[in-house]
């Protein structure tokens, strides 16, 4: 990559998008684990 113009804008846009999506994915998976532990296995049709 040679001297990218608007590098700050590009990095901010991509950074915010990826961090937000990563944090949301992590939160969803963790929430799922907490809830799944409270439900009997036969109610979790996917497992």
């Amino acid at each position, binding site marked *: 990559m040679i001297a990218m113009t608007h590098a700050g804008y590009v990095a901010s846009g*991509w950074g915010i998008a990826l961090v937000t999506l990563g944090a949301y994915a992590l939160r969803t998976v963790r929430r799922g684990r907490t809830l799944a532990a409270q439900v009997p296995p036969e109610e979790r049709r996917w497992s």
Partner: protein
Amino acid sequence: MTAPHAAPPGRATTSSRGTRVLGALTLAGLVLLLGYALVWSPADIVQKDSVRLMYVHVPTAILAFTACFITTVASAMWLRRRSEGWWVLGGAAAEVGLVFTGICLVTGSIWGRPTWGTYWDWDPRITSTTLLFILLVGYLALRRIDNETGDAAQRGMRGAIVGLLLFPNVMIVHYSVDWWRSLHQKATITRLDPTIEGTMLFTLMLGIVVFGLLFTWLLVHRFRVGWLEERVGATGLDQALVERRAEAGVGVPAGGSA
């Protein structure tokens, strides 16, 4: 009815073999997309490297609108069938859609600064997308309002009616550039002769596919979380009723009199 613990317990998660494969494909796709979006695709003659924001902004916008479409269909189906699955799907798609709409607005704002010289303008598409974001927040809030009183039918009806309004609002967002004067350009890729081509078009399409995989992965997990919330909520209500009955039973003296 299945006997308790007849099925192998497995790990208590919302993942399955399918979501694990989808997750791996998404991660691999994201690496490839970052390569194309930030390195291998050329800079634009006019916009220079700020055009690289298009590869995140446009796919997230398309998927935000897809989420609204799913919520509207799920709301209509809930009104018709009153089944729990449609109710959970509507909420899951709206929540994922809210995240994608938020990212679309933020990346658009950042892209607007070097392109138009401003982070915000009362442009028809920006304004209507912001209204869509507010509508999604309202829809999700409305779904939770009657949780404490337990009036599920009324809660469902209100939620479904607002859910029906989401996709028509998306149509306003889409056609706003044709109906009013806008800073946004008119249709670029949804026409038969797209106005971008070569590696830039390929990278944009790759972005739509990769973010589409991520959207699907998130939607499946969020749907399962919603499904589990309903199960836990129902169990909690049953348990509370049993406890209340037990308390009432304890309160009555044995033999009927002291």
